[in-house]
């Protein structure tokens, strides 16, 4: 049962083949068993999951109609606030923090009676591409536990890929959903900025952060997006757009669609092996009547530099609230206020977080603001304009999700810049606020690879429709036998 996708599971509950409680218990049992190896959870929230499952079963007993995904379990990245449930961002500095409120998306999931089975591991404050910066240790990629699952939403990707949960929630600031989805062979979606409320998402870089789903299929993500999206008055950057059904284009034909491949992403950073693989793939898809054209988006060359100025700048300010005064970790080794704050932060944050705080404070410092921060914001404008122009002609933009398949822990930690280069495909999308998806497209070196499709703003339905058709053509199947192998 744990191998089934969300839609299949929902049908089983609806048809009373299995109770919501039985189903939830099956995932909790599997999660507990496998977590020792995969380290995908920071916390398994058995009690609240069972309470929710019981609510669903009561509904079934009284003959009430279920709405889609009621009773289907879900795992939540540990940077999304759940009232009374320890939420840590995988950081020591938030040890023991119990949010006094629910994130907007948690309210939505609760209203939909989806059992939350745990908080998933991540890079500390979502800063990283491998979960290696987690205070609680790296998560393991279920395809090969000697490799990383990607990050920062690594734990959420592992949970879905390993059958611990049929669905999970991540957040994506520079690729933190799409990159681990690619590494773990599953679907991950970053919606248009402002589609999903950020209220309750512990901020990394406010103008880039966006919550999104992980699932085994494109269709499951489309259904989950229907639940997650919507205007929220508590988030000033929330988009007040009319609700739409993201499944509406799933069966639309993709014959004749125009797909752009930006040279800046495709040619520069790929190994020959990976390039050859994608060339082959594109050939195959061309035979299905899709029109591919290579294009130039000149400003994309500067996206990584732009990102690594803007994101740390926002982060340095966002993370200043962790000062030991109101919540989280407070150092005992201080006898003045400034010492308390300094030691709490120095002992509470890991090195990658500190590095980005330093970068952020540098680029915002007086005398450097114009040369770095303002410059990056101007280049950001150019990146947006480049995309805008491309979408006048093309339906979607395609690239690999990552330059390489999953790597080994420690491989890129010595040189931060090399780790940052791993995000080169995914970062431009966040700068422009666009929706993008990663779907599994095959294997390189026995590890999954993802295909990234980027759509125009608010064109999630179209993006999901095309992705769904590609999913059928690519016929990638999650191989869950490794789970038994691991045990």
């Amino acid at each position, binding site marked *: 049962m744990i191998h089934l996708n969300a839609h299949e599971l929902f049908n089983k509950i609806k048809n009373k083949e299995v109770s919501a409680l039985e189903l939830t218990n099956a995932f909790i049992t599997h999660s507990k068993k496998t977590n020792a190896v995969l380290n995908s959870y920071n916390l398994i929230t058995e009690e609240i999951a069972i309470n929710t499952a019981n609510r669903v079963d009561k509904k079934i007993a009284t003959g009430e109609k279920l709405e889609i995904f009621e009773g289907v379990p879900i795992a939540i990245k540990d940077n999304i606030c759940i009232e009374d449930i320890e939420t840590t961002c995988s950081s020591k500095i938030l040890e023991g923090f119990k949010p006094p409120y629910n994130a907007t998306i948690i309210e939505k999931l609760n209203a939909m009676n989806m059992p939350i089975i745990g908080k998933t591991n991540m890079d500390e404050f979502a800063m990283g591409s491998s979960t290696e910066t987690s205070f609680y240790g790296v998560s393991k990629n279920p395809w090969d536990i000697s490799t990383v699952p990607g990050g920062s939403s690594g734990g959420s990707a592992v949970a879905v890929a390993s059958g611990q949960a049929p669905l999970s929630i991540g957040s994506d600031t520079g690729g933190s959903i799409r990159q681990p989805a690619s590494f773990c062979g599953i679907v991950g979606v970053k919606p248009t900025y402002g589609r999903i409320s950020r209220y309750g998402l512990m901020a990394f870089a406010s103008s880039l952060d966006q919550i999104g789903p992980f699932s085994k299929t494109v269709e499951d993500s489309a259904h989950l997006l229907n639940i997650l999206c919507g205007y929220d008055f508590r*988030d000033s950057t929330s988009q007040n757009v009319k609700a739409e059904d993201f499944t509406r284009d799933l069966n639309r034909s993709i014959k004749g669609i125009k797909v752009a491949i930006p040279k800046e992403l495709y040619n520069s950073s790929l190994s020959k092996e990976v390039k050859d693989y994608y060339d082959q793939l594109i050939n195959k898809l061309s035979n299905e009547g899709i029109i591919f054209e290579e294009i130039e988006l000149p400003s994309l060359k500067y996206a990584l530099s732009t990102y690594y100025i803007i994101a740390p700048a926002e982060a340095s300010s966002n993370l200043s*609230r962790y000062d030991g005064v109101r919540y989280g970790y407070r150092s005992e080794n201080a006898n003045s206020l400034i010492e308390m704050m300094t030691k709490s932060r120095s002992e509470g944050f890991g090195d990658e977080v500190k590095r980005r705080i330093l970068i952020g404070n540098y680029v915002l410092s007086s005398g450097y603001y114009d040369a770095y*921060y303002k410059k990056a914001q101007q280049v950001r404008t150019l990146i947006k304009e480049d995309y805008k122009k491309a979408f006048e002609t093309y339906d979607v933009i395609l690239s690999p999700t990552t330059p390489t398949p999953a790597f080994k822990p420690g491989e890129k930690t010595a040189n931060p810049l090399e780790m940052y280069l791993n995000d080169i495909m995914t970062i431009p999308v966040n700068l422009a606020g666009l929706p993008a998806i990663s779907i599994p497209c095959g294997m390189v070196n026995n590890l999954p690879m993802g295909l990234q499709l980027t759509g125009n703003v608010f064109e999630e339905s179209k993006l999901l429709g095309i992705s769904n058709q590609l999913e059928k053509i690519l016929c990638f199947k999650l191989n869950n036998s490794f789970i038994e192998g691991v045990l």
Partner: protein
Amino acid sequence: MSWEVVIGLEIHAQLKTNSKLFCHCSAAFGDTPNTNICPVCTAMPGVLPVLNKKVVDSAIKLGLATNCKINSINEFSRKNYFYPDSPKAYQISQFDKPICLAGYLNIMVNNELRRIDITRIHMEEDAGKLVHQGSDNISGATHSLVDLNRCSVPLLEIVSEPVIRSATEARLYMEKMRQIIRYLDIGDGNMEEGSLRCDANVSIRKRGDIKLGTKTEVKNLNSFKSVEKAINLEIDRQIDILEDGGTIIQETRHYNEATASTTSLRSKEEAHDYRYFPDPDLVPIVIDELWIETIRKELPELPEAIQKRFVNDYNLPTDHSVRLTSIKKLAEDFENAYKNRKNENITPLETANVALKYYDYFLSNNLDFSKSNHASFQIGGLTFLVNTSTVSSSTITSILPDIVNTNYDPIEYVKEKGLAQVSDTGELKSIIQDVIKENPGPAEEIKSGKMQTIGFMMGQIMQKTKGKANPGLANKMLKELLGIS
């Protein structure tokens, strides 16, 4: 050596809103610590700010009332600094795009008009409160307690150009600002509760110099008296230093009202670098002409305009009209009392005199005039009594304690208490004749030209009538009866 004083004021005015700037907590003053708080204003992880529209409206109001240009594109920025009263470790404020720019206010200094230029007005959030424990002040404290009730209450920061030339000017400017804030009804301007505060940047230079001297910032000025006192202290201190050949250090100084002195706040090791940048959690505020015009239409008549009108329409002396407009309610109560006058021949000046007497009574007894709901009605009644010589104007002063803060009709009151003046000539005549008979000596003195003795005789008449004799009439009749008129 002749020194010129250069002062710039940064006024912080707390706005009268129900809720805070970015959350729905109450903005009320003085509640139990940490009872008006929520996840947003305590900066719990994951929360987001949403702007209170009333604050923008209030800022536009003040901008228009102080002759500012309203910026069409506004932005909030983060001012980054660590301190426990600032839970996000940044203050959401406005930096390079403030809402109001380049305005001014006119003040009267020694009967001369002075224009005080305003650099900018911007919106920002207040900080929380630190209560130091184990000592009266920060330096001896063993630890401190953080109360976030006040955190994120909306403020307008009003920055003047360094054009103020004396401590008195500074106080007058600040008083004028408070008057306008109160007229606009956007803040209560209460300095004791901290809803109006200011920091003064003070420097001096040789008269004729163009270059500004090194300035110091004087903080903790929480009454008009302390604004004037602290600035004068600082001017004297700076002059003493310079005349002794010393140099002024740029620093922040704290005014201590109890000791009437300023002390240097320990200079921090780090240079201030607030790393301002646009807050990505908030979106720009675009103010178009329509919005500005809508606010302009809502603006009340401002004190300067009312003063002019009182002088022109009612022929009131400038001094009267200035005093009548010191607060909006008094101006309104006066005008209503005059418009509803009970006698056609009642003059604006008569009404104004009574109104000012009425208001002075509240001031000198520390009563809250804003709560006197029957002021206009009672001023009207009292003016009628004076106009008809029913009571003397000194009698009014003695009636006030009994009637203010009641709904008593003064005319009824005087009738009930039998306070009406004796203006019956027949009755007065016989009383005066009695007095003359009883005091033949003084009577003779007056007849022989010693006019000072009239006062003594009037006193005798007042004694006999228990103060109710119409003094003008009595005086006139006394002279007639003594044959000297």
